[in-house]
């Protein structure tokens, strides 16, 4: 990426430095620095209120930081862009609470997410090409919802909605996926399958996973960043991080 992009300031796909944001005096993020390399999968953990969701809001343009640098692909300043522009750059987001379009069929949910021109005119006169239809079929197969493609998404179970949303991310084909608590509310079996699914996705995408479930993170087997009170507390392999005294203190209380 750096070679094709001579203006790049960093080789990282995502680069956050000294980012702070406060809401009504409460500092949700303070001096957060984080880098994600191309192709990397990273797990982010932290107690409630550590700033995990706020961090995702900043990356996806929902929240503007008070100070700090947020760069994508080495040279694009994300703080200057809105949600739609950032999404079109190739940053996809899965929300904590599964958010699918309840009144659309499963297939239409994928179609809406499918990487394609997003302008008013192009969507008004849209015709799904054969290659795109095949891509939709493939994704429906990956998330195991192919047999239910004509069902309304609102009628799916919680776990199926989570998968549909992951399928929508796949359809977007982003360079970076932000996944907020993909295993929340899932059975153990579903959690294990979700881990497999995410690992498969990580083969050709960069992924940031926010998760509470330690077992799930162990299954992913990737580098972990621990957030606490809006900044990075520790970073490294899970075993090393979970042996860190400060981390134990934060998680178990002093």
């Amino acid at each position, binding site marked *: 990426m750096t070679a094709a992009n001579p203006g790049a300031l960093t080789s990282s796909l995502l680069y956050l430095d000294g980012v702070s944001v406060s809401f009504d005096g409460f500092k949700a993020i303070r001096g957060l620095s984080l880098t994600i390399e191309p192709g990397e999968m990273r797990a982010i953990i932290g107690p409630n209120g550590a700033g995990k969701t706020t961090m995702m809001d900043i990356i996806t343009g929902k929240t503007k930081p008070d100070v700090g640098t947020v760069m994508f692909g080495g040279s694009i300043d994300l703080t200057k862009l809105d*949600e*739609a522009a950032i999404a079109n750059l190739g940053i996809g987001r899965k929300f904590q609470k599964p*958010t699918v379009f*309840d*009144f659309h069929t499963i297939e239409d949910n994928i*179609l809406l997410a499918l990487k394609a021109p997003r302008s008013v005119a192009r969507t008004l006169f*849209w015709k799904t090409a054969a290659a795109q239809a095949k891509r939709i079929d493939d994704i429906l197969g990956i998330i195991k919802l192919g047999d239910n493609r004509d069902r*309304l998404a609102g009628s799916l179970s919680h776990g199926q909605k989570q998968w549909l949303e992951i399928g929508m991310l796949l359809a977007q084909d982003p360079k970076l996926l932000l996944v907020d608590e993909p295993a929340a509310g899932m059975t153990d079996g579903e959690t294990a399958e979700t881990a497999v699914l995410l690992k498969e996705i990580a083969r050709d995408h960069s992924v940031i996973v926010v998760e509470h479930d330690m077992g799930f993170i162990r299954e992913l087997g990737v580098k972990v960043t621990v957030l606490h009170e809006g900044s990075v507390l520790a970073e490294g392999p899970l075993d090393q991080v979970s042996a860190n005294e400060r981390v134990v203190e934060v998680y178990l209380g002093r």
Partner: protein
Amino acid sequence: MISRFLMQDMDRRGTVFLALIAGLAILIPALNLLVPVGSAFHIPTSTMSLWGKYLCYALLAISLDLVWGYCGILSLGHGAFFALGGYAMGMYLMRQIGSRGTYGNPILPDFMVFLNWQELPWYWYGFSSFPFAMLMVLAVPGLLAFIFGWFAFRSRVTGVYLSIITQALTYALLLAFFRNDMGFGGNNGLTDFKDIIGFHVQAQTTRAALFSMTCVMLIAGFLIARGIVVSKLGKVVIAIRDAESRTRFLGYRVDRFKLFVFTVSACMAGVAGALYVPQVGIINPSEFAPANSIETVIWVAVGGRGTLVGAALGAVVVNYAKTVFTSGFMAPYWLFALGALFVFVTIFMPKGILGTARQLLEKRRKPAPAATPEPAPAE
């Protein structure tokens, strides 16, 4: 390509609706013009114009359903676009009077002579030309909707706040059009029309032609609205209604999609207003009254929000009921009846007449109903 866009995935209900309106466009004028007065099959001209009015309202209801039922924008000011279209038509009709007015001024309409105005205000220029006036029927409501929507949607004003400012918009226009110095006839509005493209407005044949034209425009409006809602753009718009921020994170510029449907809808409402004016013979500021816009919302809710045929049906049913109720001993109770109807529909038939009918049919077809998601909260 256009016809493919308009006819794609035409369902049975849409086909029935189109056939019905096309049938009315021919049948009603035929029964009026060809069947002699006194025959049981004769339709009086006044009845034909009354139904023409209902169909104008049906077009207005479809335009509102496009933004409310599909995009979740509850406009409580759609009457403003209807009235602006009506005024554009009214201005053309005023210019056609020429020197036949009470004061015999060949240029100035009567009310301007009465106010001692010496020359035509600049914004009346061009309205003696029918094509120009028809362009304005689309352009004036469309432009207002575009400017209004540009600011409102970009600032992400949604829900009840948006409804309130649309209501304020129509109220502000009501007050403005009441003023004599605005140059639109003040509280009397525009009336005493004579000709429309050379034909006398009151003539039976003109009335029949206007009725047929209303049917044609209703069909066109329905096809355009349907073409939009079944396209991928329509899916985006429904996605915006149900999960706006999710749609944004998929990379769609929500404000532009809203602006598109809002503007198209306003143009459609303007056409409805333009057809309404020659059939009722007057346009005055009371058309901007907030209550009118709210009534339109009731028609759509009664017929079935999010179903275009339902919206049209709701407009006709409620207005037919209104005619029946307000012309007899029940006249004083009409507003109570309307209020009760709205409460009844909201509580017992949240999907309106058409939605409820469809549910009943589906239930009969397969006894074990598939799980359906909860209805979207009405904004």
